[in-house]
């Protein structure tokens, strides 16, 4: 043992421990930075409007083409571009060809603010459409509001967006994200008391889209007398959900209602399968509503009887949906079930502008804002109306995996088949 160098080595080890700790902190900070952020702001107010027939109608959009939301960001891009192509092939909007200016925000709430400021003040676009996710829509909508721009948006349905009380926001889905579990609650309520679950577990992801959905459903189920035996909120960085699932498996709930996103939904199903625990009802807010991804991740035979919620469905007969699906297939290939609902949501944004132009003959921001605040507007997402804060007033649909297919099952007016319960054992 080298005694002479011992003290120096000791100092070196201590210095390294400090360096490693800094490394750990750096890694943690990068992880956290990837999960959140905040917005910045600037001043000035005013409004811009469009006019002049023949001049292209320039629409500015910031999308997450890289970073955490790049997959849905690209799906939204497909929807917007498909709408622009379709509308241009039919003469444009109010006689003006549509020109999209799409910029990348790298999934950053700071960048999205910069992007919309640049689009409005530097590029002087005629209109702006929304980005992907509540996280980015909130700050972006404020920028648009400051300059008097309408902010019709496809994917910012969390409470944070509507709490801003902005009159220029219109979330183009049938219902706010928070209410996505309402049709499932209504379905359970419609069952005879003897067939309803007696106990429930609520494991949810710590995310503004996810846990509030389960919280709202828990309140409703408790009011119906369904006893809560387990509730937890797990952080997004939870690598392994098996211990969480083990905890509720031990409580043997009749129903599992999980506020999930995607990977956590798959992990929970896989852990339940491995534990050999099959509750009578399983509702996964998100993840299970992906027609292609879900069966590939959990195994097609394990999907049967699982409920989820959806705002759009490929076979829907809503205004222009069959045409949208056909155009999508022609442009991008695949089957209708390969279409990401985000593409439909983005397409619906364009449809609304088209509808306003058709009704009023104008496409300026003031007209769009005042028009959309009155009446009901048709789109591939169904007929939508909004309250003063831009929150839609309709209802999502309940989806269930029946016979190996994801189908709308409730409410009856949109259902393609009847809901089935209790859930069969894993493996069908």
């Amino acid at each position, binding site marked *: *043992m*080298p005694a002479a*160098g*011992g003290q120096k*080595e*000791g100092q*070196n*080890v*201590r*210095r*390294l*421990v400090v*360096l*490693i*700790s800094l*490394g*750990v902190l*750096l*890694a*943690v900070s*990068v*992880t956290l930075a*990837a999960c959140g952020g905040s917005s910045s702001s600037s001043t000035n107010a005013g409004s811009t409007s469009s006019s002049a027939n023949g001049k292209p109608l320039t629409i500015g959009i910031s999308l997450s083409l*890289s*970073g*955490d939301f*790049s*997959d849905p960001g690209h799906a939204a891009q497909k929807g917007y571009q498909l709408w622009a192509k379709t509308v241009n092939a039919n003469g444009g909007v109010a006689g003006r060809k549509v020109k999209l200016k799409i910029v990348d925000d790298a999934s950053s709430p700071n960048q999205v603010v910069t992007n919309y400021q640049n689009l409005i003040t530097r590029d002087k676009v005629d209109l702006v459409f929304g980005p992907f996710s509540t996280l980015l829509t909130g700050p972006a909508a404020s920028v648009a509001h400051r300059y008097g721009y309408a902010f019709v948006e496809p994917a910012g349905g969390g409470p944070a967006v509507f709490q801003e009380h902005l009159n220029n926001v219109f979330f183009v889905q049938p219902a706010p994200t928070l209410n996505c579990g309402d049709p499932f609650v209504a379905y359970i309520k419609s069952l005879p008391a003897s067939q309803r679950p007696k106990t429930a577990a609520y494991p949810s992801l*710590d995310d503004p889209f996810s846990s509030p959905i389960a919280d709202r459903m828990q309140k409703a189920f408790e009011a119906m007398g369904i006893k809560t035996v387990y509730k*937890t*909120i*797990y*952080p997004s*960085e*939870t*690598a*392994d*959900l*098996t*211990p*969480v699932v*083990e*905890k509720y498996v*031990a409580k043997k709930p009749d129903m599992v209602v999980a506020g999930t996103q*995607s*990977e956590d939904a*798959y*992990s929970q199903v*896989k852990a339940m*399968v*491995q*534990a*050999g625990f099959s509750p009578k009802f399983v509702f996964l807010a998100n993840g299970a509503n992906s027609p292609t991804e879900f069966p*590939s*991740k959990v*195994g097609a035979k*394990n999907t049967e009887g699982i409920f989820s919620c959806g705002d759009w469905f490929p076979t829907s007969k809503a205004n222009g949906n069959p045409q949208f699906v056909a155009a999508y297939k022609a442009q991008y290939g695949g089957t209708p079930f390969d279409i990401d609902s985000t593409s439909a949501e983005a397409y619906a944004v364009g449809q609304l502008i088209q509808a306003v132009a058709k009704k009023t003959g104008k496409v300026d921001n003031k007209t769009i804002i005042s028009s959309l605040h009155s009446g009901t507007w048709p789109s591939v997402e169904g007929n939508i109306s909004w309250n003063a804060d831009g929150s839609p007033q309709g209802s999502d649909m309940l989806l269930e995996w029946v016979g190996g297919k994801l189908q709308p099952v409730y409410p009856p007016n949109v259902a393609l088949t009847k809901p089935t319960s209790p859930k069969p054992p*894993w493996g069908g």
Partner: protein
Amino acid sequence: MHLFIQACILGLLAGGVYALMASGLTLAFGVMRVINVAQGAMIVLGAFLSYTLFTKLHIDPFVSVVLLTPLMFLVGVVLQLVFIRPLRADEREELSLLVTWALALGIEGLLSVLYKTNYRSTITSYADNSWRVLGYHLSEVRVFAFGMSVVILALLYVVLTRTEFGRTMRATVQNPVSARLLGVNVERVSALGFGISVATATAAGAVFGMVTPFFPGSHYDLISRLLSIIVLGGLGSLGGAIIAALFMGMAEAVFAAEISPTWSSFTFFIVLIAILLLRPQGLFGTNERGAL
């Protein structure tokens, strides 16, 4: 009590895989005084390579380990020659942090371009299977993953203690100057040591991809856990890293099941802070260079 024991079993199985992941990290530090913060990215790279072999060629991930580890061993040797060896010996510890961090970001960027940024999972036909033993269920994939980790770590132990190369490596760890005076080619040992480190990361990555969904950015979370493990075990101590990994794996699972999943992820960092305050050299480390 049933839940506690079930959580301990889960944690033990996960801890075995953590041990394999951390072994390469502590080996690289022990031999070269290199803090390889790219170890997490190497694991993710291993997960993607195994995923590709499974999805494109239907090669089982446990079989792909046999194919990939020799290849990645060579890649590790090349990386050491290109990125680590040129570093000045007296600044190697600090500079290796920066160089390997850059390497990690490079690997992440490359994987993002090739595979995009969405999550992947290597789902085998036996992914859903589990055994029931005395009322406790054991996932087949996790048991196989644990078993593979034990076999590889045992091989590593045999190489380090029973072979000429192992003796030269341990000599290098204990005193590189004396080892060099006695004819050990320290540079060669260092390159091979880094190769072994990358090879173990690849093997761990193959099983990691079967147990946990992963994407190119998964390495940030992994490396912070692994650094916590090797600090707890004692920097450069292989045995310490293994025991620390098993302990951390179990602590994480028990926290998630018995207390709250919110605190589970913090387990690693709480232990890290406690170790820094109470025993900075780790459980099995010393303030001086020691044996692996």
